[in-house]
Every structure is written in C-alpha cells, then in structure tokens.
C-alpha cells in the first residue's frame, strides 16, 4: 500500500514537473571529464591517472552535536593503506585526495567541489548529519558514491551505495524492535521523539511496527519533545503509570542519558533501546545509567568473537595509524571496501558506469564479514530481502554481543513479513 | 473661533500633576509666548498639544476640530509644525532633502509604486518650493550639504525650514534659542519675524529667554508648577507681580 502510494505520488510529481517546468535532467554539469591525462592503460576517466585513482569525501567535520563524523575519513584512509600496501589496484594507488567538511548542511556545494575541483573518480566517504543534498549532483553526474546512509536522500539512486543495510526507511514497518521486545519478554513500550520531521516519523514507524507485529503494545508515545530539553519527569511519570518496561527513543544521546537518569530517579525499571548509543566513550562515562540497555548495529561489532576477517584487517590498519576506532570510522572503512570491490569487478578497463553496474549485480556482498549479505539488485529500494541486526547489551560500561553465534554476528528476519516468524536466523 | 484652543488640559505622571487645567488659545497669524521656570510643565504642555502625550483631561481643538486623540502625524497634516529644543534632524540627509521630504509628507504625494518605477525624482514644482524656502532662510549655499556639517544656528534654521515646508497654520517653537549665542539668537529672531511677516503663520513660542519672547510675541502665558499663573498681552504679563516672583524673581 505504502509503496503504491509513493509510486503514485512520484508519478504525479513527474507529471506535474513535465507540464510546466524543466524536468530534472541528467545532462547538466557535464564538464567533469577534464582530468585524467594520458594514462598508460586505456582508462580515460575523471580522477584516474596512470598511477593513482583519486577519491574524495565529505563529512560533517564541524557539527552542532560534535559527533565524530570526521572519523569516516580515517576508515577510508586505513582501507586505502591496506590496498596500497598490496600494490594497489591495476597498478594504481587509491588515494583519498580530498576530505571536505559539509559545515552543517553545505554538502551539495562540497560535492560540487569534489566533482569539479578535486578531480575525483568516486566519492567516499559520505557522512552528513543533516540532509544529504549532495545526492543531487552525484546522481546527475552518475558518480559512484559510498557512505553512511543515515539520510533520506540515499534512497532509490543506483549509484549511491550506503554502508547500512539497504536504503533508510524512516517510519517504515520493521521487525527489529518487535523482535527485541519479544526476546526480552517486554510487554509495554514507551516511545519518545522530538517534534522535528524525521524524529517524529521514526516514532510513528515504531508504533506501526508494534501494530503489525504485536509482540508488545505501545503504552506511551510522545512526539512533542524539543531539542535541548533535559527534563523528562512528566513523561517518565506517565510511562511508569502505564507500566512501560521497554523504552525506545528517536533522539540524541543527551536525551537518552537524561531519560535514563529520570527513570532511575522515579524508580522506573525499564530497558532502553539506544538508537545512537554505540559509543564507547558515552557508555563508559555513564555506565550506571545505561546498564542493561541495548544497541543494534548493521555492521559486525568491534566486540564480535571471533572477529570476522574484515574486522581483523580493520583493527590492524586502523591501529597502524593510531586512528580512533568508532562507528563512523567503520562506515568509512566499509565505504572504501565497497568501492574497491566495485573496481575489482569492473576490470582493468573500469569506468564509473562499470563500477556501478558491477556492484549492482552483487547479491551477497559482506565486506569480509563486516556486514550482513547485501543484495545490491534490491538494496537501493526501501524494501529488501531481510533485515539484519547485530545486537549488543550494555554491561558495566561495556558492550557485550548478544543473540549471536560464533562467526554469525547478525540476527536476520525477513523484511516486512506478514507475521513475525517464530525464529530468527543467524548470519 | 481660535486657530488653536487648549481647554483645561490636565496631565499626571504617576500621581504628580504636571499640568493642572491649563488653557491657552492662539489666533490666526498671531505670535504667542509661553514661559515658565524649569519644571513648570512647558514641555509637557507642548507635548500634549502635539500628541506626543495623551492628557488625562481636557481637550485640544484646532480650527474648531477636537484633535485630542489624533496621532502626531495627523496633526501635522492638519497644519501643525514644530521645531525642537534639542535639534532633531535626519542625519545623513541633505538640507534640500529635508525640505523635500517635508513637502511630500504634507501632501502625501509619495507613492510606493512610483518609487519602484523610479518616478520619485523631485518635480519642477517641488524644486521651486524648496528653493523658495531655502532663499527665505538663507540656506541656499548649503542646500546640498548633509545636515551634520551645519552649525547649530543654521541647523535650527533647517528645522524651521522643514516645518515651513509643511505650510503650517501654526508653528510651535520649542526653546529655539537654546544652545545659540546672543548673536545667533538675534539673527534667528529676525528670520522668524520675516517668515511670520511673509507667510502669516501663527507661532506658539516656548522660551526661557525673556528678551526673545518680549521682542517676538504679542501675547504671553506663564506656567508655574503646572498652573497657568498669568496670560495676556506680553508687556502686561511681564509686569505682573506673581510672574516676577515665580519666574523673573529667580533671575534677579
């Protein structure tokens, strides 16, 4: 139903645009074939010289929330170091020539700069806190681009490869939280969100998910919190009265921390799902408050035992440079890995188009076990084969993998099944 | 019917009565003085006449029309004009622009759409009228200068000119001699007399310089502690004992 509605809206939009306005053509820009120069092989592509393949990225280095988005560059650099130490690819070194700062939402301009000024073959990493407006020039010029797909603009474009499973679907029905509630035996869910669009929509998604898979009922839902709010006394009071035993938020870490403190104050015993909580610094600084809470990841956690081969490499090459190993660095690493895979599959006569096409034929790409198998024939859409999560529980200020079996860190369920299956599969 | 008639104007500021039943009239073409010691309520009364303050009781009539509740700018359009004790000019504007803007404000001829189409340049007619006023006040040589460059005496003349461009029936002068030396005061008085003679404008003069008032006004009212203590022909009032005690006595 939802898909059909979106399709109808999209068609209407297209019709509307066709009527009176220039359609969003792919032909603009066009001047990006200046670079390259004469190369020994016959590759004539922007950003490809006879000894290097130039890559550039954009991340919210400076941002209001002070998140370590710049770490994504470290991940890419570490991966390129690994590739280059083995002689590079097709006689060329991979080089991250440009690390641009999107300065809170300026990423369209920065992407334009990457394409026109920095002479890059591909774009990696991308990690933007606000809207990924840079998607537009990337799509217009059909540049392979890799990054952390936490914004809506990643959806649908064949040349954008996100490191999270599939396209982001904020507000879609998902099996993830109903599964967790079921595994933990939780019965009443509390949902808290900001009044801004994506947060509120995320809360609606949680509600819809529990409506579709009634492993528990939503006992309290608020979408009326504002940024900077630090007091949850009324909300917690109401959740306590409603008998809520599991709380999920669509908010930042300041909110989850203050919420945890308020729950302790009012003696409310409930488990939190921490949406942005995979941050060792945050957890160890506040271990009393996040004790027993859960985090879900779409890549193999640093705590995986035994570590998958990709994680071993990640640790080795990150440590070599003394980079901080965190979530964003991992997304950078995975982005670089996808680019490298695409190049390898495209063959020595690679072009941007060949890289994109080659990746889009993959059906079970795992980045050496770092992610659950990706089916890129489908992942650009908002529905895919299955939804996989690696689960962690906070114990004494540390993350401990749960529900995993050795060498299979992910818990997978079919994506949007009619009913929640009795058993999940480990991958 | 008087040109201006203030009837029993009373104004209080948080319990203090600044004006108590003050009445005053100005006839067409007449020059009336208003004097009083500091704090007597002259400025308060002036502001009540102009609409900058709303009196608690009493009314102000202009040409027989009750204007007590009119905002300042509407009174101006009826034919009120004033000068300020502390010079209030429009910084950054030339002398000519001061006169031009006053002319337009009076007639209300400014139109936004004319601005947009760049049709707001001064017309021949407007230029003629501003030239006439510049000549009358002897300001031709500084017409294109910004007002910041003027001396205090000439700045006051610009104020007078700006007031005259609104073709007022009544000109209210608030301590025009303040800040001027004796020489400047004399030349200002001369100019004002010339203006009055040429245009027949009625003048209400608030002053502390008794000589200025004596030489300029035919009738005089005296305020003391918010009360009107005397009114009548200038010479009689200045001879009055109460006035000498309250006001002139101070100066001896």
């Amino acid at each position: 139903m939802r898909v059909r509605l979106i399709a109808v809206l999209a068609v209407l939009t297209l019709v509307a645009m066709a009527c009176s306005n220039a359609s969003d053509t792919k032909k603009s820009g066009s001047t990006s074939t200046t670079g390259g120069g004469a190369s020994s092989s016959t590759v004539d592509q922007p950003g490809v010289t006879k000894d290097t393949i130039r890559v550039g990225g954009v991340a919210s280095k400076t941002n209001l929330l002070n998140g370590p988005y710049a770490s994504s560059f470290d991940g890419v650099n570490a991966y390129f170091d690994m590739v280059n130490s083995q002689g590079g690819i097709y006689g060329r070194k991979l080089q991250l020539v440009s690390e641009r700062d999107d300065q809170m939402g300026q990423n369209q301009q920065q992407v334009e700069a990457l394409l026109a000024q920095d002479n890059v073959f591909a774009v990696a990493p991308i990690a933007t806190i606000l809207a990924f407006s840079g998607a537009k020039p990337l799509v217009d010029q059909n540049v392979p681009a890799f990054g952390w797909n936490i914004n809506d603009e990643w959806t649908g474009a064949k040349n954008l490869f996100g490191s999270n499973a599939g396209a982001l679907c904020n507000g879609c029905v998902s099996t993830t939280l109903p599964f967790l509630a079921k595994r933990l035996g939780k019965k009443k869910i509390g949902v808290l969100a900001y009044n801004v669009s994506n947060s509120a929509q995320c809360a609606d998604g949680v509600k819809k998910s529990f409506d579709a898979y009634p492993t528990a009922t939503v006992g309290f839902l608020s979408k009326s919190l504002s940024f900077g709010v630090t007091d949850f006394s009324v909300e917690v009071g109401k959740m306590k009265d409603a008998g809520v035993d599991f709380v999920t938020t669509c908010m930042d870490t300041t909110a989850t921390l203050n919420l945890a403190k308020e729950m302790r104050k009012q003696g409310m015993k409930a488990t939190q799902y921490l949406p942005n909580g995979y941050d060792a610094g945050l957890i160890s600084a506040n271990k009393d408050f996040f004790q027993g809470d859960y985090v879900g990841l779409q890549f193999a956690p640093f705590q995986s035992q035994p570590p998958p081969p990709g994680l071993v490499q990640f640790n080795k090459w990150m440590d070599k440079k003394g980079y901080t190993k965190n979530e964003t660095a991992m997304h950078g690493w995975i982005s670089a890995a996808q680019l490298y895979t695409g190049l390898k599959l495209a063959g020595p006569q690679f072009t941007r188009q060949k890289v994109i096409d080659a990746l889009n034929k993959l059906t079970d790409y795992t980045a050496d076990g770092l992610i659950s198998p990706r089916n890129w024939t489908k992942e650009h859409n908002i529905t895919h084969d299955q939804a996989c999560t690696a689960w962690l529980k906070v114990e004494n200020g540390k993350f401990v993998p749960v529900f995993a079996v050795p060498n299979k860190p992910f818990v997978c369920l079919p994506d949007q099944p009619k009913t929640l299956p009795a058993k999940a599969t480990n991958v | 019917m008087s040109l201006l008639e203030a009837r029993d104007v009373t104004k209080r500021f948080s319990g203090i009565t600044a004006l108590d039943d003050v009445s005053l009239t100005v006839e067409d073409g007449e020059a009336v003085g208003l004097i009083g010691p500091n704090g007597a309520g002259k400025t308060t009364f002036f502001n009540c006449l102009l609409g900058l303050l709303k009196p608690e009781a009493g009314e102000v009539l202009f040409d027989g029309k009750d204007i007590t509740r009119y905002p300042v700018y509407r009174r101006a359009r009826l034919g009120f004009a004033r000068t300020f004790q502390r010079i209030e000019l429009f910084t950054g504007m030339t002398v000519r622009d001061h006169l031009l803007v006053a002319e337009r404000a009076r007639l209300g001829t400014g139109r936004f759409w004319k601005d947009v189409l760049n049709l707001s340049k001064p017309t021949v007619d407007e230029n003629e009228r501003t030239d006439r006023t510049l000549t009358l006040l002897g300001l031709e040589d500084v017409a294109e200068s910004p007002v910041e460059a003027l001396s205090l005496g000439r700045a006051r003349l610009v104020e007078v000119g700006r007031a005259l461009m609104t073709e007022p029936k009544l000109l209210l002068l608030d301590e025009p001699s303040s800040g001027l030396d004796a020489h400047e005061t004399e030349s200002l008085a001369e100019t004002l007399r010339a203006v009055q003679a040429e245009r027949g404008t009625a003048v209400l003069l608030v002053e502390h310089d008794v000589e200025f008032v004596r030489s300029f006004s035919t009738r005089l009212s005296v305020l003391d502690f918010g009360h009107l203590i005397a009114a009548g022909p200038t010479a009689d009032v200045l001879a009055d004992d109460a006035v000498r005690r309250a006001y002139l006595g101070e100066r001896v």
Partner: protein
Amino acid sequence: MQELIRYVILGIPVGCVFALVAVSLVLTYKTSGVFNLAFGAQAFLAAAVYYDVHVRHGWPIIPAFVFVVFVISPLLGFVLDRGVFRYLRGVSPIAKLVSALGLAVALPQIIQIWLGPGQAFGITGIWWDDNALYRFFGDYTLDGRQMAILVSTVVAVLALVALFRWTAIGLQMRAVVESPRLTELAGVNADRSSSAAWMLSSAMAGLAGVLLAPFSASLNVGDFTTLLVSAIAAAAFARLTNIPMALLGGILLGIAQQLLAGYLPPASLIAKDLKPSMPFVVLFLLLLFWPGLRNRREVTDPLSGADPPPPSLASASRSAMLTRSTHIFGVVFVAFMVYVILFRADAFWLSLLTGTLVYSVIFLSITVITGMGGQISLCQVTFAAIGGFTTAQLATAVGLNVLVGMLAGAVLAAAVGALLAIPVLRLAGIYLSLATLAFALMFENVLVPVGWIGGGIKRVNVPRPIIGPFDLSNNKSFFVFCLIVLVLVSMLVIFVRRGTTGHYLDALRGSETAAQSIGINPAKAKIVAFALSAGIAGLGGGLLSMKNGIANPDDFRFELGFVFVVVVVSTAARTVEGAINAGAAFTILPVILSDWLGVSSTWAFILFGLGAIQYARHPEGTLEAGKRQSLAFFQRQYDRLAARRARSAPDQSGDGQSPSPSQPLAVKS
C-alpha cells in the same frame, strides 16, 4: 487536583534552569544595556574550560569551579568590556544587540577550535554527587545537578537583589547604563563600574555554563543556544529589568511546560506543535501584550546627542568625476567577471558564484530592513523559507510554473512580513528584534515540520524553469537568470531608497519624533519596509531552492538568521554593493579559507562575527568604512591633480572648490 500539584512541583526544577538564564540576561541588560544573545556562547566557554580542567586535567571540583566562575568568566567579561562593549556605552540598544550577535556567532567557533574534535563526555557538576537523590514530600526526587541549580539560582538572585539595593557599585552599574556621561559628571568612574558589570554578568554566564553542562551527554553549543532562546520569554516577563521577576518568569515557564506535557495527549498533533514552541509563543504574546513592553522606548542617554552623528555613505562624499570613474570601473569589472564565470570557470565555481548571486538577493532584504529601516530583524531567513517552500510546493505539488511559484512565494512572504509588522511595530528597538526571533522560532518549530510546508522528511524537489528558448537547468543559463534577478532587485532597492519611501525611512531613522512632526506616518512607512524586505527575502529563498533543486529546511535554520545579519552588517548594511559583497563573502570566503589557505572554514564565521562586533563603531559596516578611507584617498589624489592643473592654468579662478562636507560651515551672519 493532585495531578495539578504534581506538575506544578515538577515544573520548579525545570523552571530554575530557565530562571538561571533569564536572570543572567536581565542582569546583563540592566548593567550594560546589552541584550546578550552571546550568553549561550559565554556559558559554552565556561563549560568548555570547566570540562578541560576538571575532566581532561583532573582538577577537583572546587578549584575547577572557582577557576571557571571566578577567574576565567570574569576575565572574559573584562576583555569583552575593554575590547568591545566599553565603546558601545550610549549607542542604541540595537547596535549593542548586533555586537552581541557577532559575538554569538564568533565565540563558539573559537571555542570549538580550541576544544578540538571529539566529544566532551562525562562532565560532572559541582554538587558532591551528581547522582545523589533527594526526596521531597515523599514523592518528588531531585538529583545533585538539579539541587545545584536550585540552590545556586536562589543564592544568585538574593545576592543580586542585595547588590542592587544596598551597594554603591550596584547603583553605579545601573546608572552607567542610563547615562554614562551624567554618571561621570556625578563623579563615578564609568569605566570601572562598566568593567565590574561585565565581569559580574560574565561570571553569571559562567555559573550557568558549569551548572548546565552536566545535563548534556556531550558538550555542545547547541544545547546552550536552545536554552537561551527558550529563556528569553522569562526575561521579557521581567521586562528585562527585574531580577526577582525573571526568577518567577523562569519558574512559571517551567511549570507551563510541565502542565502541557501532563495534560496534552502526548501523541496528538497539538502537543507535537504546541509544546516545543510554547516558550516562543509565550515570548511573542508577552512582547505584544505585556504591559511595560508595549511602546517601550529603550533608555537613551540624554547626553548622547553630543556624539558625532553616523557618517554618511562613502558614495555621498565623493565628487561626480570620481563617481563616474568608479562606475565605469565597476561596469567593466562586472562584465569581465561574468565573462570569466561563464566561459572560464568550472562547474563548482559556477555553482558557488550562482550562490553568491542568490544570497546577495536575500541579503538585499537586510539592506532594506536594517540599512533603510534601521531595524534588526532576526527572521529574514524565515521569509526566505516562506519563499522557498512556496516555490517548491506550488511547482511540485500543485504543478504551477516554477517562476509563478517563485513570485507567489515572494508575494506571500511580503504579506506575512506586513502582517507581522502590524503588531510588532508597536515595539521599539530590541523588543522588535526579539519578536522577529520569536516568530522565526515559531515558524521553525510549528510550520516547517508540516508536510505541505517544509515537506516533512522528504525534501520537496524544485525544478528549474524554461523561459522561451532558455532551459535554466543549464547552470550557465541559470547563472544569467540569477544575475538578472539580482540586477532587478538591486534597482528596486536603489529606486526605493532614492524615492519617497527611502526618504521617509531615512527621516524616521534620523528622528522618529521629527518625522512624525512633519506628517510621516511611521507605522505605514515601516510596514512597507517590512513587506518589501520580506518579499525580497522570499524571492531569494525561491531562487535558492531553485538553485539547489530542493527546498531544504537545513538551508533555512533560524541560527542562519543570526549569521545573515552578522554578515551583512559586518560588510555594509546600507548599500546595494554591501549586500553583494556580503553575498560574496558568505559563499566564497569559507571556500578560500578551506581550499586555498587550508584552515577550517569556520574561521569565516569568526571573521564575520568579529566584523559585526565593530558595528557600533562603524554602523555603516566595516567594509564600507574601509571604502570610505580608500575613497578619501583617491579623492585627495584627484583634488591634488586638479589643483596642479589649476595652478598650471593661472587664468582660471579657484572658486569652484566646494567646501568639504566634513568641515562645519561658518555661520552666516
């Protein structure tokens, strides 16, 4: 009833947070006449230093607290007073507000660079145990952080009230705001008491910073800014002057928030829209209806008339010859630039410079409202948003021609501007600016999240128009289109400034009383200015969404409204070239800094902020001041040249020399 009591009691600790900020705002306003929008930045600095010494360097709580609140913060206050605000005594509160805005933009960036990347976790407060719980009436629990705020707020309020009531320095600080010169005549050292005032208010901001920091999971300036704008309502409740009232106002605000949280159904639409925007709605209503704020004229120094008036525009003080030569140079330069951009620049520079044109259009709206109207509006970005979203929705959802959509957006923005102006114009000075801020925040909180306005999470696409044979999806054509729009809007602004409306506004800014005394209706003139300015901003917003291809709420965040004002006043608020320079600076400077000089592009904001701090000294803009100097230089050279020529031709008389306008003319006798 029991529930009601419960929410009221729960509101008190929340209210104390607001109260702490509101009391600081009132304190600063009372002792320095500055409405301190930089409060958040000052508090952030204190929190950052506290984090550095306490967490990074492991100082115990008490030395760290004393160091931050009694050493670093007063030192900052002292530096700000000596470096900036001392020169602002006696200037209008608007000029002071702009300086504070400049500081609010620059300071956090400087701190961020000092703090370095990475998150500042684990700040513990000054209470011996942040997480100790204290029970009251059996049912209500406060933790250490809240206890610290509660106690500090009460102590601070009592101390401040005592200071102002019973000590000489307290009285002097107030007197200095009212009239520094009169106070000096009375034998008070105004410099000393102004320094004391700034040190005191900065210490208060420092206290707030240290007390509030433990509430954030990781330190960031955003939390402080949000809190600041929420607490303004409490300060307005106190009429910016009464400290106990600010405490009361803060607590009432906290209680109101808890009542809304308690009684509105939490998932409902009204709760979603109303609750987060409540402080701004309250602020807006207070500004309009709270007695004592209506029609309030700010304190002006009766002796301030002794100050020299602001200089006239540089262009007014040059000869016709020089004017002509600069115009010719300007035309040649622009033509050359357009040629280079269209035929030599790469796609990035083309897009960047198109951005320059678009932002120049938006900034021209500030030329109108600030340069001509003399008002500081903090919601120009909101008008741009109205234009942008209208363009997008009309083009995409309704299917209108996008050009029609853009014009409709401009008209709608102008209408909203006029409607906003009607109630707001009864306010003067900073109250008007605060009302525009409240409006911007209400718009962002209530309307932007609405799907058919801001588009929800899906940004609305905006197509480019086709005009005759020109398809503007070609970026070069679009550049030319933007250039034409900019030229048209510039001409509009120049014509209006030269015309009657411009003269009326000049007159009103020069002296509102005198302007009324010649029959100018101030409300009407200002409504026209507001509407024109909003319309231009709306047009610019439409253009921006067309350029980006989407109407992106991120391009219209309310903080950008601060930045816009700061950028424009730091270049030149009164001229069209000023707006264009500001557009260029806003778009190009960050690129020059990051791509050419290799430093963080945030330095651009620091430079803009520092430029705006100069506003009071150079109300015509820092660039304009530089231009005046260089023009004066050229004029001197030109005069010297002319004089030499005159000397070589001795038969000509030298009486053509007009007196230099900067010299007072001799009194004509």
